[in-house]
Structures are given as C-alpha cells and as structure tokens.
C-alpha cells in the first residue's frame, strides 16, 4: 500500500499551462498518474498532453471525483488557487509553488483544517508512491524516476526536495523500496509536519519503517520527538538532520528560509538529542541510513 496517492488517485493540476507544469504533467502521465483535468483561468478548452483545461476547479468536480490537486501557479496566485481547491472539497493538495508569503500559507492551512484537507507543501517537489503514481515534478522523467524510486516498505519524509530523491535512491540501491516518499516542503510553515505524516504511515500496514530528513531551524523535529515519547509508534523511525556546521553561524541562511537557526532549541545537535531521547534512531552520517533501516526492520 501507500499513503496520500496510488494508481487510482484522480488528480488535477492547477496552473497546468505554465512551463514547469507542462513538463510535470507529461512526466506524471508517463509515470501512470491519472490526471483528469487542469486549470488555467481563461484557457478553457485547451489541452495539455491530452488533459483537458478548465477555467475553474468547480467545472472539473462536476464531471469527476477529484482526489488530489497539484498547485503549480505563481506565488501571488497560490493562496487563491489553494482556497479554490479546498472550497471544492479536494481532499489532498500538494503545493509546489515557492516564495508564498508565510501569512498566505497560514491562511491556506487554517482554511484547509476547517475542511479536513491534507496539504503537502508549499515549496515541495512532490509526492510519489513508487510504481503507482506521483504528484508534482518529483523524480523527473519516468526513466530517471524509476532508477531512483522503487516500490517497497519504507516511508520517506524530507524537508529537502532534493533529498527526497537522494534518500530514496540510497534505499533503492540497498534493496529497500519505498511505500511513499514525500517532499514535505522547505518553508517555515508547511501543511503536513513529520507528525501529521507519521499518522498516515502508521495507518498503512505495508509501511515497515520511516526515514526522515530534517534541517536546522523550526520546531518540527521537536514536535515529532514529543509525539513519539508521549504516544509511541509501531514504526521504527530513522532520522538524519543536516547542517550541523550551521550552529557555528546563527542567523545565517544556508538555503531554505526555514533553515535559519534562531535560538538554542532549534539547532541540529539539540534536535538530534531530542529525537534520540524519544527512542528515534539518528544517523550520524547519511550513508549509514540504509544499514540502520535494515537493522530496524529486522525486529518489526
């Protein structure tokens, strides 16, 4: 099994006529994703690789049951696009768009919570359930996607889009396939945290362990540690937190806006120690991950 998406998921793409969306649509179709429609206001009647284009999400939901939307519109239109998807009852939304103001994101997420919508991102490269379907640009063209991602029992959750692929590739090369790999988004405020996604993986009987990739800054790893400590989980979690050297340079941004260290509680060493205290396996080096995963699932 998998979480969030599978071969039956009916997907729409908002902003489908944009350049990145074009490529992403083609690659997703090639991978087997069921894309039932796209939205670009004013482009009704056009088609993108055979996918019909509509003006409004409401026009698509009249004809199809839509399970997920991929948002690939420019940042200034992203809030409206997400509200439109939420309002039309689409249960899963993956926001790929970068540079959405935090206030807009918070509004999207609050509106989404009121409607029970699951939101991945913003600033995500997508979600993939290997061998079944994918949302967003994750993996690239189908032949590359197939080298990196293979079906199997490991869940992957990553703060970094690039590392979603890197981790999955490492697992694949050690004979460990993935149930679903999620680029959760690099922004300081995102729709689904480690804890939100762990809840989904827990409910998936075929997932046997989860690998997570964290970065400096923010309180999401601390939230995960707390959650595991208070509640426990059937799934072994293998974590890696990048950017230990950043501790020597507080306030400096090394990439994602979310990765700036503000205080003493969001440094990498602090996160690693909180995760360890909660019984989560923390890899010192990224290359240890496949071995640690194999050891962990032996006992499950």
């Amino acid at each position, binding site marked *: 099994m998998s979480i969030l998406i599978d071969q039956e998921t009916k997907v729409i793409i908002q902003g489908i006529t944009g350049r990145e969306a074009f490529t992403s649509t083609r690659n997703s179709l090639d991978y087997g994703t069921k894309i039932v429609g796209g939205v670009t206001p004013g482009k009704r009647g056009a088609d993108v690789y055979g996918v019909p284009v509509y003006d409004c999400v409401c026009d698509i939901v009249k004809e199809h049951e839509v399970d997920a939307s991929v948002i690939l519109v420019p940042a200034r239109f992203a809030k409206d696009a997400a509200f439109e998807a939420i309002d039309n009852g689409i249960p899963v939304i993956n926001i790929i768009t970068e540079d959405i103001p935090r206030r807009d994101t918070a509004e999207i997420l609050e509106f989404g919570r009121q409607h029970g919508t699951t939101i991945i991102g913003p600033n995500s490269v997508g979600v993939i359930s290997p061998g079944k379907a994918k949302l967003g640009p994750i993996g690239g063209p189908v032949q590359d996607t197939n080298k990196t991602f293979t079906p199997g029992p490991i869940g992957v959750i990553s703060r970094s889009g690039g590392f979603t692929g*890197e981790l999955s590739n490492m697992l694949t090369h050690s004979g460990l396939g993935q149930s679903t790999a999620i680029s959760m988004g690099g922004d300081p405020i995102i729709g689904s945290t480690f804890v939100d996604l762990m809840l989904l993986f827990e409910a998936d009987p075929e997932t046997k362990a989860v690998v997570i990739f964290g970065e400096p800054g923010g309180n999401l790893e601390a939230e995960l540690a707390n959650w595991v400590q208070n509640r426990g989980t059937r799934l072994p979690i293998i974590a890696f937190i990048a950017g230990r050297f950043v501790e020597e340079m507080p306030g400096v941004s090394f990439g994602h806006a979310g990765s700036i260290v503000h205080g003493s509680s969001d440094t990498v060493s602090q996160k690693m120690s909180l995760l360890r205290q909660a019984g989560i396996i923390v890899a010192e080096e990224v290359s240890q991950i496949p071995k640690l995963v194999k050891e962990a699932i032996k006992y499950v």
Partner: protein
Amino acid sequence: MRFYEYEAKNLLKKQLISVPSQRLARTVEEAREAATQIGFPLVLKSQVRSGGRMKAGGVKFASAVDEVEAAASEIFKLKVRGKAPVGILVESKGDVQQEYYVGVTYDAAAKLPVAIFSDLGGIDIEEVAKQNPERVAKSHLSVLMPFSDFRAKQLVGSVGITGGDLNSLTQIFSRLIRTFLDYDLTLAEINPLAKLSDGSFVALDAHIEMEDVTIPRHSQTLTELGIGRTQEATDLTPFEKKAAEMFAGEGWVGGSMVDFGGSMGLLGGGGGTSLVAFDSIKKQGGDPANFCDWGGNFSAVDKVYQLAKLVLEKPGVEKIAVITCVLQAARVDLIARGVIKAVLEKGYSSAEKIAVFRVPGGWEEEGFRILKKYKVNFLDRSFSIDDAVREGIRNMR
C-alpha cells in the same frame, strides 16, 4: 528583512506604540547634538542587526556631554558579532519600574502565529519559558478570523495583572499583534516593554522582521518610514560579494555561497544536499574553501560555467569537488559541460583539477560519456554523498 532597532521603533510609533524620545546619530558630533536636544540621562545603543549587543558593550549610558562623546566613539568602533554599527540610537533613559515582554511569531507545529506575553521582560524569552513557565502566557492566533483585543487581554490577565496596567498592556499588545498581521511580519517583539515611574509604558527595545517576499506589498510604508534604506556595511569577502551579485542576476533562483577559506572548492546544490556535503567534509577532516548552494532552477551550461569559474578563481582553491543529490529537474550532462568548460578555459586539466564529480540524475548517461571523455574522476548514484566527499578529500592530496 530584519529591521534595525530605530527602524522597528519608527514602525511602532506609526502604530501608536510609545517609544522613548530618540534620535539616530551617524557621527559622534550628531550623537552630541542629539544628547543636548533630548536631555539627560541617556542611553546610546549601537545599531546592528545582531543579538548580544549589550554583552558586547554596544549599549552605554551617559549623564553628561563628555560621556556621550566617549561612549559614542567607542560604540562606533565596536563590532558586534562581526558587524559594524550603521549608527547610534540616542535615547532618553526613563526611570523603569517594571519590565514586560510582548511578542508575536509563527509556530510551525501549530501552523499559526503565536502571541506571547510575560511580566518578566528584559531577558531572553526562551530562558524565562524554561525557568519560570508560569510567567509566560501564549496563545495561537487565527489568520482567518479578524483579531480581537480580548485575546491580548486574556494573556495579560493570565499572569495576574489587573487594574490600569491590564488595560494599558492590552492596548499595546493588541497594537503589536495587528502590526504583525498587517505588515507580513515573521517576528515582532518588544523586549523590554517598560512601565516608567510616571505610569507610562514605552518600548525600550524592539525586534521586527518582515518577510522578504512581501517587501513590495509594503513599499509605501517602508519608504514613508525610511525603513530598508540603510545599507549595512557587510562583511562579505570579495568572493562572497561576487557570488551574491551573480545569484541576484536574472534567471537565478536563490543560491548561497559562504567563504570558508580552505583549499577544496565546492560546487553543488539542491536544498539540504549542500548542508549534508558540507557536514560530511568537516566530519572527514576536509578543508572546504566555500559552502555552495546554487539554488533552484539549475539547468543551464552557462550558469554552471560562471559559478565554476568563480570558485576556480578563488584564492587558495587547489581543486574543486562537484557534489549534488540525485537531480530531479536539472540535467547531468549540462552540469558536466559547464564545469569542464570553466576548468579548461582556466588552463587546468579536467582530470586533475576536479577532485570528484558526483552528480546523478537526468541525462546521466550522456553526462558520464562527457566526463569519461575528459577523464574526470566521477562517481555514479551507487556512491553516497559521504563516499563522494571521501573520494574528493583523498584526491586533494
């Protein structure tokens, strides 16, 4: 964008939050003039965008003109965490009776803003939360519902404050929360907010950050208040400065380059990948020349070529290492071409100058063909980033 203290206070004043009478001085002479206008006693505060200002000696008190001159000339010379001040804020020093903390920021776990109040102001709020959690009150704010003052009142009241102080603090706190929400701030903090012996409340220090991408939305207010005009005398090295100019150019998305002065020049990107590679180099005892995250949308020969040239020209760089995660959007062949072009053009041998090249992803077969042709030492996706770093360090010798 982090505001300087004087900029933050300009915004607070506009929002009807009182601050001490004050003037910004750019020279010792201006500080003296400001002092005579405001009157004593005074506090002189270094205008740097950094914490730890008090400890470093960037805040001094004066009760006479000669003290002002001495204090000002010292502060102007003093760097705080490597940063030189852009001026000195000369401020009237009131008789403080009690200090409070009021702040608003985002909570990633709750995905909402959180308003925080404490009657133990003047110290780091994280410390207060650890030592005296009962003195810190927090509440998440809706971003869909309009803000209503009672939420601030509940927080102030919850630590036991009543009477006139409750009403004064509620008003100031509510104004700060509205400022946070209306101006796309990511942090708005008054610490300390002081009650003076005459019963008035003033913001003694303020820390405000506005989200960079929203600056255009607020350009009118920012211009009106003179915020964002001060260019910090940066401590960027010439290498960092050139990289920053390049990243600001058309077609580049993000990107960051930090000088570390070593011999192993780094090229790479992909969010967390650069962090992982850099950690690995430090752990394995390498000598990195720089941190490099080449940002998003990276698939043009010319971009790679320019960036590779910049790193190759950096003094002290003996060899370069090109390390990325498995690329999902960019093309391996284009990156190989860009790097090799720069190396050859600078008159180096591609077999010797490139310590390691580990860039898997789209078009990798074509990429590997080119790399073989130019005898570049490359690794494919079956090798980890740690492996690539080990190989790179080995080849530095």
